[in-house]
């Protein structure tokens, strides 16, 4: 039944493991986590089903039913028209709810196959499913699989090729639920099972009395671990590599190039007291490589490692319920914490995850708060490196200011904007032991993404800085912005160069503050402003797409206003 042009859709409820199966079928790299809403866009990949025939597989964001209730649902339902074959991914541990969509899909498309995912979990949960009976009663081909380990994928592939058309019978909503009851009565037996350790922990971390302290502990430990791992990596791997291996090499090239001159300064950087200084020289091979690889990469590695474990464990939706209360005060609901946390890694995926939020008001508030007060890991790493030298309390001060901005600005927007924050309604997945291989795979994917995206732009940024210095372009801008920079914020006018660079790369921008010999107060103000005044280009483009021009302009205006006023206030009160 399948042909070269066949489009195969992976459709199912949120968090049933569609992306894991997608990745198994196509070999494509996609993010897989244990929370509903991991996939926000359509991913597409190719699958070989006969030696020289390929089909297109599309991973569709999760839906509960074919009645679309949000924009994201509409996208998913619209895809149905384009698909030739449907792989309906079903969570075997939660058949009753999942089968509703299965029956709906059966009415729409005669060619579908059911992938009974999380098959490995049914046994621990005391669920026994008779696959043959289920197949017969549903009238569909059913294959037990496990996307994470790859179990059953081969059989799924084989059965997909020989799929037969199914008969369809249109049922009303109530008839469907009745039919599901009948099918499960025949094909599923539930046994009593003892609570596992994970399930017990699930209970205590959902109750408010114990859940809140656990949330605080989890967040605190995560940050401590991220710092510990990153600093250990820097101290023992990255610093030694750059000092003992790369530096002698650079010094040799530097002296070969005559230690000065235009090309020398662009490639190696200006010598500081006769030496190459990774922080201040600003050459492509010195600062240009040191910033992304030695200063930022260790933090990216450790952040995504810890985030990956939290995601796969299933903690994020629990954190969302714990912070729901607070988030309502700032015009959001608890689940908005998910894009914010992703934004801490990089604002680009964070901004993409804004799609998880229901309405325009909520998206606007979340995007504005993220752009202003959620610095990405690259920027955080540079702030920790640069400001940390003056004392840890100044780093804490910057993050305290950012948090205060979230609260004040969130409360203000929530009060001024018409409407109110929507209610949370979200499924909380069970805790699952993170699969080490899956965690490493996701980490690898995110780190290579960072290297591919960041290194070229950092190098471009460093190159531009050199060109602008040569052309004296900053002097002109510095004169124009001097009233704000010097007058209101108390910063030397040279900081304009860093603010300009911030549009391209915030990490390079923070790095540009290093040679300016700022006082601690100036450094704190400059770093705070760099975090809040505007998102980097890449984030801006995604936000523009998610918000539309009008809302983006409003949001941008708010960002600039915040930066101007916060900078002035800090200059007065610090």
């Amino acid at each position, binding site marked *: 039944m399948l042909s070269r042009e066949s489009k195969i859709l992976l459709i199912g409820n949120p968090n049933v493991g569609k992306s894991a199966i997608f990745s198994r079928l196509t070999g494509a790299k996609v993010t897989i986590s244990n929370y509903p809403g991991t996939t926000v866009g359509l991913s597409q990949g190719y699958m070989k089903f006969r030696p020289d025939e390929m089909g297109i597989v599309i991973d569709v964001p999760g839906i*509960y*039913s074919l*009645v679309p*209730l949000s924009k994201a649902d509409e996208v998913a339902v619209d895809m149905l028209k384009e698909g030739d074959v449907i792989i309906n991914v079903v969570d075997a*541990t*939660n058949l*009753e*709810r999942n089968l*509703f969509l299965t029956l709906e899909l059966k009415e729409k498309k005669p060619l579908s196959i059911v992938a009974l995912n999380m098959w490995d979990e049914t046994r621990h*949960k005391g669920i026994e499913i008779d696959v043959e009976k289920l197949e017969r009663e549903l009238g569909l081909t059913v294959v037990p699989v496990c996307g994470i380990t790859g179990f059953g994928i081969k059989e799924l592939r084989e059965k997909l090729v020989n799929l037969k058309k199914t008969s369809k019978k249109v049922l009303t*909503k109530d008839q469907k*639920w009745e039919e599901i009851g009948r099918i499960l009565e025949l094909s599923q037996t539930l046994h009593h099972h003892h609570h596992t350790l994970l399930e017990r922990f*699930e*209970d205590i971390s*959902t*109750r*408010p009395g114990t*859940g809140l302290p656990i949330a605080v502990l989890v967040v605190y430990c995560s940050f401590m671990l991220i710092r510990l791992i990153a600093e250990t990596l820097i101290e023992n791997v990255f610093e030694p590599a750059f000092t003992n291996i790369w530096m002698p090499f650079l010094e040799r090239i530097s002296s070969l190039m005559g230690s000065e001159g235009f090309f020398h300064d662009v490639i190696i950087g200006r010598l500081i007291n006769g030496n190459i200084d990774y922080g201040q020289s600003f050459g492509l091979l010195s600062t240009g490589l040191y910033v992304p690889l030695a200063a930022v990469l260790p933090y990216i590695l450790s952040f995504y490692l810890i985030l990956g474990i939290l995601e796969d464990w299933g903690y994020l*939706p629990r954190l*969302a*319920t*714990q912070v*729901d*209360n607070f988030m309502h005060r700032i015009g959001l*609901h*608890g689940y908005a914490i998910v894009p914010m946390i992703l934004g801490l890694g990089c604002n680009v995926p964070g901004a993409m995850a804004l799609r998880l939020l229901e309405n325009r008001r909520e998206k606007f508030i979340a995007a504005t708060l993220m752009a202003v007060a959620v610095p990405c890991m690259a920027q955080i790493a540079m702030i920790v490196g640069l400001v940390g030298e003056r004392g840890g309390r100044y780093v804490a001060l910057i993050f305290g200011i950012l948090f205060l901005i979230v609260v004040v600005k969130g409360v203000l927007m929530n009060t001024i904007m018409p409407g109110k924050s*929507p*209610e*949370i*309604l*979200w*499924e*909380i*997945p*069970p805790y699952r032991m993170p699969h080490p291989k899956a965690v490493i795979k996701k980490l690898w994917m995110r780190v290579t993404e960072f290297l591919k995206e960041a290194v070229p732009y950092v190098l471009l940024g460093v190159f531009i800085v050199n060109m602008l210095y040569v052309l004296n372009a900053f002097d002109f801008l510095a004169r124009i912005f001097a009233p704000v920079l010097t007058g209101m914020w108390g910063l030397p006018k040279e900081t304009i160069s860093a603010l300009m660079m911030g549009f391209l790369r915030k990490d390079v921008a923070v790095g540009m503050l290093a040679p300016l010999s700022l006082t601690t107060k100036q450094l704190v103000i400059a770093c705070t402003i760099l975090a809040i005044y505007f998102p980097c280009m890449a984030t801006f483009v995604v936000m523009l797409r998610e918000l539309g021009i009008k809302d983006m302009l409003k949001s941008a205006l708010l960002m600039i206003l915040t930066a101007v006023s916060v900078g002035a206030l800090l200059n007065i009160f610090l």
Partner: protein
Amino acid sequence: MGSLNLTQLKAKQHAKVLELDGGYAFVQRLEALGVRPGIQITKISSHFWKGPVTVLVGKTKIAIGYGMAKKIKVMVK
């Protein structure tokens, strides 16, 4: 026992859903998650200051905002 709304239910209490007292989208969203009249649910917890209510429906745990939870009428067995 008379009918209560979900916020009035105590933790670990079992109840039957009687009515979803809200608009079309509200009913659709809850039903899609398996919360529909006639179904058995167990309350897991509620959070202070009108925070979300968490319930167990079949094998699924769901967090429901306070305002929504108030519109879900249930009957304790």
